[in-house]
C-alpha cells in the first residue's frame, strides 16, 4: 500500500471524512466500471457503488492494510453484488442496455453487441472467486502476479481459477446461444 494511502486510511479510521473522500476518489472510477459490468445498467451500478462506499466506511476498522485499498473495496463490492443477487434471484440481468450507436451495419452491429452482452451477463453470473480473477485480468488488465498479490493467493491458483472461469463462461455463453436460437 502506498504511503499516502496508509496515511489517508489511518485518518479515515479516526473519522476524518475528508480523507475518506480522497480515498474514494482514487477508486471510484474503477469500482464503477466493475459495478457496471456486473449490473449491466448505470442506475443499478450507481446504487451498488453508493452502498459499497457506505459499507467500506462502516468496515474500515477491519481493514488491516495487507492488501491495497482498492482490492479491499473491490471485494466489498463483489460481496454486496452477490448479496443483492441472492436477494433478487429471479431478476434477469438486463440485456443489451449498453448498446452504443452502431458504427457497423445495423445487423452486424447488433450481433456484435449481442455477443458482448452475452459475455457480460455470463461474467455477472459467475461465482465470486472466478468473477474476481476475470475482472482483474481483463478489465483491470493486471498480470497473474499482480492478481495473486492483490487477492493473496498463489499464482498457480490464479491461473487455475482463470482457466475454470473461462470454461464456465464458455458454457454459459453457449447456453445463451442455445436459448436465443
Amino acid at each position: 500500500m502506498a504511503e499516502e494511502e496508509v496515511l489517508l486510511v489511518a485518518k479515515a479510521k479516526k473519522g476524518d471524512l475528508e480523507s475518506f473522500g480522497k480515498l474514494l476518489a482514487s477508486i471510484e472510477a474503477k469500482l464503477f466500471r466493475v459495478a457496471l459490468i456486473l449490473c449491466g445498467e448505470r442506475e443499478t451500478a450507481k446504487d451498488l457503488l453508493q452502498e459499497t462506499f457506505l459499507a467500506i466506511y462502516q468496515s474500515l476498522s477491519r481493514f488491516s492494510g495487507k492488501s491495497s485499498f482498492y482490492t479491499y473495496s473491490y471485494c466489498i463490492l463483489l460481496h454486496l453484488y452477490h448479496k443483492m443477487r441472492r436477494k433478487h434471484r429471479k431478476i434477469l440481468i438486463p440485456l443489451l442496455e449498453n448498446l452504443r450507436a452502431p458504427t457497423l451495419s445495423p445487423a452486424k452491429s447488433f450481433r456484435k453487441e449481442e455477443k458482448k452482452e452475452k459475455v457480460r451477463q455470463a461474467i455477472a453470473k459467475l461465482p465470486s472467486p472466478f468473477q474476481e480473477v476475470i475482472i482483474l485480468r481483463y478489465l483491470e488488465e493486471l498480470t497473474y502476479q499482480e492478481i495473486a498479490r492483490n487477492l493473496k493467493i498463489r499464482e498457480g491458483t490464479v491461473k487455475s481459477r482463470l482457466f475454470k472461469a473461462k470454461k464456465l463462461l464458455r458454457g454459459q455463453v453457449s447456453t445463451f446461444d442455445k436459448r436465443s436460437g
Partner: protein
Amino acid sequence: MKENDLERELSNLGNEFQKETLSISLIPSTLRILKGQGRKAPLFLRTIPIFLALLLFLVLVNLFSFTTEPLLNITKMVFLVFSLITGTLFIFKPEKMIKADKKMIGRLSFRGAIATPLQETILFRLQGVYFILIAFLICKL
C-alpha cells in the same frame, strides 16, 4: 465459443468498459450521508414527530364518531392509530420508509429507482399527508 474468441470478447469488453465514466461523482452524496449519520439531532427535534402524532391523535379522537357497535369502534380505532403512525413516519422519516419500501418491492428496486432521491422524499411525504387524511376520514366514518 472457442477459447480465442472468448479471450478476444473479454478483452473487447474490458476496453469497452474502460471508456465508461460516472457523469456525477457519488462521493459528495456519500460523505453527506455519513455526516448525517454521525451527527445526532437534539432530543427535542427527535421527539417532534412523536409529539405531533400524539397531538393529532388527540385532535382526531375528539372528532371520532363512536357507534353502538363496540367491534366497529375498536376496528376504527386500530385503523386510526395505524394511519396516524404510518402518516407520521412517511412525513418525518421518509428516508426510512423509502428503504423499507425498497426492501418490500425488492425486485423492482434492483433495477434502480426511477425518481431522484428528492422526488422520492417528496412523494413519500405526500403519501404521509394522504394517510393523515385517511385517519381523518376514519374518524368521521
